[in-house]
């Protein structure tokens, strides 16, 4: 003992050395682990298919000679005027473009709009000609356009690609000619809690960057071959700096923007998160604003947010418009806001969680995290149950149990141990969740929260199950993962009289789930019925009226021969009947109410067709309504033709043999330059579940614009094997080091012994 302690320095030095080496190698291992997990995480981020909808701003693209390559027309100026009336916004966008080339071109203008927007007006000013668009059936409109194009007439065509993406084709634009495109559309403003907001997708001026784009572009084989027939191929180099495009123009696109706001309620704060604004208030309900700076860098969407001054009881608003022999009405119900809330009923919460194989990876973690979050926030008076399903099914408790300690602990353990595996048999789970043992118990509200990625194919059966067995239950779908089948889930929650929430990434779990729980906790108004003065001649949408959750407005659109008499709205707020009478003749007259009615009717027809599958009948009705109200829809398009031919005979229209499809969001910066932007955009789309829902809608038209979106087709295997090999190599190196160290220590020891 004493002998050993006499040689502290000898003992110390190898120990210190080996100790630090061990520390070092542990560190290396940890770094490796970290890298491995990071790689997997990064994979999860890029695997989604959400990008179909990347068009965030309008841009005019000219077809070029090479398929898939487009020449962006420089955007010169944009003027935006938005009128907000209650829940409706009417926007007029005027944009001026120039054809920088020496040839005759066909251009295509893509513009993303909110999904509920109704495009009803198109005007083209080419040179000194004003062409106004006419509404026609889709096929006919296309035929008219193509005929005009072939005959050298200037023509334009506005088509709906998806409910939130429209295209405008413009034929026969002459060399160096200036074109003014004016589009008007109507939309309902977004509402989230007490916050109203409106977004205008700011136009990003297309930056002309063929050098960056070329090596990575669609076709490697054709190399540097002609960037379009706008200029002859030998003038390729000139295109990099088109004479008309000042370098600065690519970065700054002068936008002037005016908003007039008539909120329909006393206004609180009005803000614009991304731009400086000059605000002018006009009484307590109205305001107008303009951009404070004349030149606004067009790299951020304009967003306006306004809040009401707090109210404590539901308030209603009414607008009307007379078209022909009919009156159109818009009824707006604003739920109570602020802190004064009626007491809510206790709940029976049924959580359904999908643990099928398609959920594996981050989706499963998000679903579990969301569910655990939800379980933690149940009130003591609530009851609950948990159902999990893949191709098998487990109902945790035989019946809903009180949400207290032991039951919750059992449920949490159950959820934590879930693993994603197996197939997706959603129908039995849905059926089980809708089994209600206390059908007539109205002391509780029954809420089914369904967490899934919706990877299913028997949508029709599921809809049928929901509509026929819903009873007093309400269905809240929560879409998990970067690319859930949100189209199905939105429709399912509509049929289930609940809401749809999309959770696209782990960091959204808390935010989105608390929004949803706010709604679940506050069933402001249920069983709403609208009784019109003359029920037989009145057509009102949506029908039936959905429940009024906290944070959601109810907007009713109706048509009747003459607006007179009294509308009675009945509902139930926290067990108390609520009733309001509204003299329908009293509404303030506003334009656009009829179009909103038509758009909502079309929306409902689309939804009905989806559920019932009777496309033909509904398509005919959609066409009829859209034609009558001059709206662009899935079945109708706006077409404008200037009858005087402008392209001389013999001059070639360069797009002649071009494919009509157009890449959505063709934005070099977005695709190649800054991945960060891409991610930010995905995130912003995640923010609006409804919009995403439409993006995922399998509309046949969608395919036309960007080509099919292709799935992720790489496995983790090479990365895993590579990482594993590295780790093994490191192990071998460590072993060698260890051996060397021992060898060295023992020989030193031996020397010392001697």
């Amino acid at each position, binding site marked *: 003992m004493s002998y050993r302690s006499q040689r502290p320095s000898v*003992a110390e030095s190898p*120990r210190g050395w*080996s*100790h630090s080496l*061990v520390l070092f*190698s*542990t560190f290396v*291992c940890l770094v*490796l*682990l970290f890298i491995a997990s990071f790689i997997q995480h*990064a*994979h999860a981020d*890029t*695997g989604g298919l959400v*990008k*179909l909808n*990347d068009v965030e701003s309008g841009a005019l693209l000219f077809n070029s000679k090479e398929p*898939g390559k487009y020449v962006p027309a420089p955007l010169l100026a944009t003027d935006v005027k938005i009128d907000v009336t209650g829940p409706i916004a009417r926007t007029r966008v005027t944009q001026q473009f120039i054809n920088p080339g020496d040839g005759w071109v066909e251009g295509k203008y893509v513009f993303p709009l909110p999904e509920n927007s109704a495009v009803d007006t198109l005007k083209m000013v080419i040179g000194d000609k004003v062409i106004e668009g006419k509404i026609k059936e889709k096929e006919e409109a296309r035929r008219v356009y193509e005929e005009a194009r072939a005959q050298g007439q200037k023509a334009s065509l506005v088509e709906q690609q998806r409910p939130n993406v429209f295209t405008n084709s413009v034929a026969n634009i002459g060399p160096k000619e200036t074109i003014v495109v004016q589009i008007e559309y109507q939309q309902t403003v977004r509402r989230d809690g007490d916050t109203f907001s409106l977004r205008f997708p700011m136009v990003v001026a297309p930056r002309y960057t063929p050098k960056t784009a070329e090596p*990575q572009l*669609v*076709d490697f*084989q054709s190399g540097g071959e002609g960037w379009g027939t706008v200029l002859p191929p030998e003038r390729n180099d000139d295109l990099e700096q088109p004479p008309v495009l000042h370098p600065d123009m690519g970065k700054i696109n002068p936008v002037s923007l005016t908003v007039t706001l008539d909120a329909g309620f006393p206004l609180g704060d009005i803000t614009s998160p991304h731009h400086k604004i000059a605000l002018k208030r006009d009484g307590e309900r109205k305001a107008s604003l303009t951009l404070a700076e004349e030149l606004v860098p067009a790299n951020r969407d304009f967003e306006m947010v306004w809040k009401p001054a707090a109210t404590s009881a539901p308030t209603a608003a009414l607008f009307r418009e007379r078209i022909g022999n009919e009156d159109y009405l818009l009824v707006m119900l604003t739920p109570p806001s602020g802190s004064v809330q009626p007491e809510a009923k206790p709940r029976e919460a049924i959580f359904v969680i999908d643990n099928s194989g*398609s959920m*594996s*990876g981050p989706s499963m973690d998000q679903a579990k995290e969301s569910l655990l979050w939800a379980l933690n926030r149940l009130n003591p008076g609530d009851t609950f149950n948990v159902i999990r399903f893949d*191709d098998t099914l487990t109902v945790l408790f035989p019946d809903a149990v009180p949400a207290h300690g032991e039951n919750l602990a059992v449920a949490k353990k159950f959820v934590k141990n879930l693993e994603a595996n197996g*197939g997706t048999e959603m129908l039995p789970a849905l059926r089980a969740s809708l089994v209600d043992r206390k059908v007539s118990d109205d002391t509780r509200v029954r809420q089914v929260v369904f967490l899934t990625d919706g*990877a299913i194919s028997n949508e029709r059966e599921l809809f049928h199950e929901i509509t026929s067995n819903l009873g007093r239950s309400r269905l809240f779908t929560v879409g998990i993962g970067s690319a859930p089948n949100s189209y199905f889930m939105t429709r399912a929650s509509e049929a289930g009289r609940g809401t749809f929430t999309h959770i696209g990434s782990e960091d959204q779990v808390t935010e989105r789930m608390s929004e949803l729980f706010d709604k679940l906790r506050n069933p402001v108004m249920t069983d709403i019925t609208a009784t019109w003065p003359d029920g037989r001649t009145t057509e009102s949408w949506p029908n039936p009226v959905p429940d009024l959750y906290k944070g959601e407005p109810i907007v009713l659109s109706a048509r009747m021969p003459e607006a007179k008499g009294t509308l009675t709205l009945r509902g139930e707020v926290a067990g108390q009947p609520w009733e309001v009478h509204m003299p329908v003749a009293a509404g303030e007259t506003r334009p656009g109410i009829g179009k909103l009615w038509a758009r909502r009717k079309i929306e409902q027809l689309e939804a009905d067709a989806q559920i019932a599958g009777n496309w033909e009948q509904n398509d005919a009705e959609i066409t009829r309504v859209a034609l009558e109200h001059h709206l662009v829809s899935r079945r109708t398009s706006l077409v404008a033709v200037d009858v005087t031919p402008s392209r001389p005979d013999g001059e070639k229209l360069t797009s002649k043999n071009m494919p009509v*499809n157009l*890449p959505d969001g063709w934005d070099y910066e977005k*695709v190649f330059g800054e991945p960060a932007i891409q991610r930010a955009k995905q995130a912003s789309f995640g923010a609006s579940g409804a919009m995403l829902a439409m993006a995922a809608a*399998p509309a046949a038209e969608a*395919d*036309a614009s*960007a*080509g*099919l*979106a*292709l*799935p*992720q*087709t*790489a*496995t983790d*295997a*090479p*990365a*895993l*094997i*590579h990482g*594993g090999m*590295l*780790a*093994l*190599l*490191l*192990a071998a190196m*460590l*072993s060698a080091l*260890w051996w060397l160290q021992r060898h060295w220590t023992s020989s030193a020891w031996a020397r010392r012994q001697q």
Partner: protein
Amino acid sequence: MKALMARKAAVLWAAAILLCVGLGTWQVGQGLYIMAKAELAQVLLERAWTKTLEDGRPHKAWSWADTWPVAKIEFPSLGESRIVLSNTSGEALAFGPGHLLGSPLPGGNGTSVIAGHRDTHFSLLRDLKNDDIVIVTSIDGIGREYKIRESKIVLADNSNIDPRAAAGLVLVTCYPFDARERGPLRYAVFANENPDAI
């Protein structure tokens, strides 16, 4: 004391090495597992496909599968074949190439798209040359011959593949082939119906 310290150091050394060995073996194992699964699944799928050809109805290769064979694709120039599954979810692609929903099935009206993993089932795409023949057998047992027209690198969300274009076939996999990271590029092989075939 000295022995104790030496033992401590040895334990740490062993732990570090074991950790690395463990991690490495686990990762390599996972990687090999993915590849083995891909290989084995094709055997099981082949069996299900035979049944499908017999009665013309879809059969799942295993009862809990989310997907089922919808076609068989053969590459005579490489002497290889693959069973094509009914969708392109991550789950399906682990077992075989999948038919991209939104495009018609092979033999249908338009351009049909089949996607597969670059490191397993569709690693062979890089070996295909223009004018090579691809034979696709659909569920009705009819084999169709396609001739490869060209191969291109496209962007996943800007593929420009129009499913309503002329009857044809597009085979898609991730690009570049040897990359370890996932990315936005796809390798697409375009084939037309072979006019020479009878």
